[in-house]
């Protein structure tokens, strides 16, 4: 007898619905803030820069996280015919995760952030995330180890890939050195930080928002459709190609920037190769519905699944498209990217979640769904919401992209004022907020519907009979047998030769290229001769959880190592391309941390791309050397406002002083929030010594100074700026945060070697 633990499933589901509402509500608020700046309310903890990270973290880690745990814990028990290994670990996982979310919801609005997208949480919370993730992993793999079902179903493959890869990504991107209990600097700076961040950021989408949901699709979709899965071999091919290729695509977030060309090219070609593996998942889902399409009309669960999988296909076609260099020149930094992400998160994640909740709730509480009609209404409201949202973002992104890049025949910008572009898409911002609000409304209907269903039912305990001879299965393969096998050896050889071809001198590269092609041919011939034996080997691999997990880890680790290690070890980074960075003064460093705290990177980039439009608007394109001392990097990913990397000394201090207090006084029509608290809060000078100490240990050449000297330098620079402001009749203490922020802004672009280049391009 095996009694499944469904209590934990019920709790995770409740948490997912709750945090889903919270996260999406914050999303609607930040969308409205872009349209109506007044909704920033002039309070620090409600400004866009602090709430946007709260929105992304809440919907990714709180909503999809809890939804993923619901689906994984429910389906894994059934697919292995085993109760979860440890009640204790399950509940530590549940409450640990919820506490982390509460911690995030408190710290992010307070401005406690690392400013790395989807990795903003401060270091104590990061450690908690790792601990809880490891608890989850132990609970999951322990369950696999004591399972009563010999072979691992495809859903489990995707869960394994999720758990392993998220752990790897999360740990590397969160390597950091604390300066206090609430603040730290990442150990990577500048381009290294950018690369690690997008290796993580892109694959958070891949392994947090995609693979677990594919696993969930493979369990719940055939269950709900009562049809066999379309193709086992398609599962194999798309699983392995997906996990191997996905990890390489991160640099497509940095196209046309200062990132070395070879990395940009890798990011682009791997994104294009990712198209088919992604569609493999969509095809296996949609083709499983063959013979069940009549049910899609009546069953809300299948309706959500069919639409969700279709949106997955749409988003994974758009992704490779946006990763093409020339398309990216138009789309990057615009709303198009935001629309793309939401096609995935609203269309794929939230619809798959809704389908799963509607399927689970009646079964977990032994009753019928309260109202099919309400679920249908939810579906259509949600669908209209997504379409409005995505269409608005397409129009807005393409419009602003074209306007900002467009150059007159005279060789100057057609729209020199950035705000012209921002304000030309105002109606789209309203439409997007409406779309988001509709989607949230649909989600409320679901919450009500589920609540009424639960109210009418009673928690069900599921017990199954497992015959004694089927218990505690033996592993099919040893680790050795799983690695020394033709499929693994051939794949490894091809990747090694490909890497040698890509990264070595002409002669060895040519040899490697020939060997790569030859190995591929030999492998194909071998496959056609002994395909059956390979297939038997794979069947036995599926009976071995540990070897399977190790092979998955190898597949996902390859890409990251080849891309990241060369940059980490190239210590020539300091004057990349003959452009060194100015070392911050104490006051500038304090100002920079205020810039980070306020989430300025959510709207402003600090990377002028190698595009004519960018160079004409902002000055010479960014060089790697110019951000080597930036821990964390601030290249940004979205321009709701202009690029700031060379804005220093462009305007007088008084301009910035008035601008932060009321952006519309200097930039008519701006939707930037006002920052009144910077004018009465004192800058955190006390933290300077430990910050400087940590940065020095990371290689930033700050001159050696005592704590008193640091303070004195800070005060001297503050007095200078205040004296300058005094000429315009302003009186303010030099310790106020706004003064430090102005000091930081005014040095942007002040790179010793870049200055002559800048003059030449003018």
């Amino acid at each position, binding site marked *: 007898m095996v009694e499944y633990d469904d209590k934990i499933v019920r709790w995770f589901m409740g948490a997912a619905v709750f945090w889903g509402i919270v996260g999406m509500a914050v999303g609607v608020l930040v969308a409205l803030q872009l349209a109506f700046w007044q909704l920033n309310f002039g309070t620090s903890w409600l400004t866009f820069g602090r709430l946007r990270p709260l929105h992304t973290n809440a919907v990714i880690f709180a909503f999809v996280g809890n939804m993923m745990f619901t689906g994984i814990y429910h*389906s894994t028990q059934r*697919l292995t*015919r085993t109760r979860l290994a440890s009640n204790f670990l399950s509940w530590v996982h549940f409450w640990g995760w919820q506490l982390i979310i509460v911690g995030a919801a408190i710290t992010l609005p307070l401005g406690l952030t690392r400013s790395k997208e989807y990795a903003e949480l401060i270091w104590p919370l990061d450690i908690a995330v790792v601990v809880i993730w490891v608890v989850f992993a132990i609970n999951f793999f322990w369950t696999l180890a004591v399972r009563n*079902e010999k*072979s691992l179903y*495809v859903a489990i493959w995707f869960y394994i890939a999720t758990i392993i890869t998220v752990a790897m990504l999360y740990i590397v991107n969160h390597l950091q050195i604390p300066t206090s209990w609430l603040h730290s600097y990442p150990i990577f700076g500048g381009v290294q930080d950018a690369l690690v961040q997008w290796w993580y950021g892109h694959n958070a989408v891949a392994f947090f928002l995609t693979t677990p949901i594919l696993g969930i699709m493979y*369990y719940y979709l*055939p*269950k709900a459709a009562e049809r*066999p*899965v*379309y*193709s*086992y*071999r398609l599962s194999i*091919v798309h699983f392995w190609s997906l996990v191997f290729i996905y990890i390489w695509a991160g640099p497509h977030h940095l196209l*046309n920037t*200062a990132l070395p*060309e*070879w990395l940009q*090219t*890798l990011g*682009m*070609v*791997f994104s*294009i*190769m990712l*198209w*088919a*593996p992604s569609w*493999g998942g969509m*095809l296996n889902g949609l083709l499983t519905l063959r013979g069940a399409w009549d049910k899609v009309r009546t069953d809300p669960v299948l309706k959500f699944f069919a639409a969700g999988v279709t949106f997955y296909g749409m988003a994974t076609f758009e992704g490779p498209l946006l990763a093409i260099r020339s398309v990216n020149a138009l789309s990057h930094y615009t709303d198009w990217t935001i629309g793309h992400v939401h096609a995935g998160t609203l269309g794929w994640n939230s619809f798959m979640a809704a389908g799963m909740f509607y399927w689970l709730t009646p079964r977990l509480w032994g009753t019928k769904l309260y109202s099919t009609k309400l679920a249908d209404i939810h579906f259509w409201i949600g669908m209209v919401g997504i379409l409005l949202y995505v269409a608005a973002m397409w129009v807005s992104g393409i419009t602003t992209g074209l306007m900002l890049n467009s150059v*007159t025949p*005279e*060789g*100057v*910008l057609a729209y*020199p*004022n950035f705000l012209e572009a921002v304000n030309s898409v105002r109606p789209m911002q309203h439409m997007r907020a409406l779309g988001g609000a509709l989607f949230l409304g649909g989600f409320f209907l679901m919450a009500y519907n589920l609540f009424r269903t639960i109210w009418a039912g009673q928690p069900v305990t599921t017990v199954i009979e497992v015959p004694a001879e089927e218990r505690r299965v033996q592993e099919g393969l040893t680790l050795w047998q799983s690695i020394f096998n033709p499929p693994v050896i051939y794949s490894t050889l091809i990747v090694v030769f490909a890497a040698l*071809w*890509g990264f070595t001198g002409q002669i060895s590269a040519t040899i490697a*290229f020939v060997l790569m092609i030859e190995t591929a041919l030999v492998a194909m011939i071998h496959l056609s001769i002994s*395909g*059956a034996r*390979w297939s038997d080997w794979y069947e036995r691999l599926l009976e071995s959880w540990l070897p399977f997990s190790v092979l998955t880890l190898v597949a996902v680790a390859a890409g990251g190592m080849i891309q990241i290690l060369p940059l980490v070890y190239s210590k020539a980074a300091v004057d990349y*391309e003959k452009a060194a960075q100015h070392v911050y003064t104490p006051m500038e460093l304090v100002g920079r941390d205020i810039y980070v705290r306020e989430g300025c990177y959510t709207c402003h980039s600090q990377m002028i791309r*190698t*595009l004519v439009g960018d*160079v*004409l*608007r902002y000055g*010479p394109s960014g*060089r790697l050397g110019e951000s080597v001392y930036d821990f964390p990097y601030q290249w940004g990913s979205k321009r709701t406002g202009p690029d700031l990397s060379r804005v220093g000394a*462009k*305007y*007088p201090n008084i*301009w910035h002083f008035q601008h932060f207090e009321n952006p519309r006084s*200097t*930039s008519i029509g701006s939707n930037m929030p006002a920052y009144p608290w910077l004018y009465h809060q004192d800058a955190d000078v006390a933290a300077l010594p430990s910050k400087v100490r940590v940065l020095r240990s990371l290689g930033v050449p700050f001159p050696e100074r005592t704590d008193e000297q640091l303070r004195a330098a800070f005060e001297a620079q503050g007095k200078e700026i205040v004296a300058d402001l005094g000429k315009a009749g302003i009186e303010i203490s030099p310790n106020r945060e706004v003064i430090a922020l102005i000091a930081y802004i005014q040095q942007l672009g002040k790179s010793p070697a870049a200055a002559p280049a800048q003059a030449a*391009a003018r």
Partner: protein
Amino acid sequence: MKDSQQYDPDKLRHHIYDGIQEYDKRMPNWWLFTLYGAIVFSVIYWGYYQWAGHMQPGYVRVEKQIEEFQKSALAGGAAPSAIQLWNMSRDPAIVESGQKIYMTNCVACHGQNLEGGIGQNLVDATWVHGGTPTDIYNTITKGVLDKGMPVWGPVLGAGRINDVVAFIISKNPTIQQPPEM
């Protein structure tokens, strides 16, 4: 993958997982084509640009493009003379266009009525950086970075700067008509 002789696409696999069964159907050909096609494309793309060295660093590429632009911009002719600017300031169409440009780019610092603010007053008789039409043109084009006046030349371009200068002249009664050349 089974031997082709005994392969039957409609056969269900022997495993059943919690009631879920699996076919082992052939992968759609068009899908395999996109998979292999993308891989072949990637090999060729990498081979051409990275291996054979046809990829220049981005900053070199963009500098060349900018150079081209500047050549064609310079071909547009020399800076306008003082009298040309003055004459433009008597042309209502040009002044109106200048006003529009002023209102989006200059108004924040120089004021709704050119009365000044962060920037200088433009309707009085004081000209810190010179008050002839040519001086005004140069100040806008090259900026006065020390005083916080940005460089507008590459941003607005000569055409739009002419219009703004015309607008300013039309608003400031102290500027004298320059002698005919």
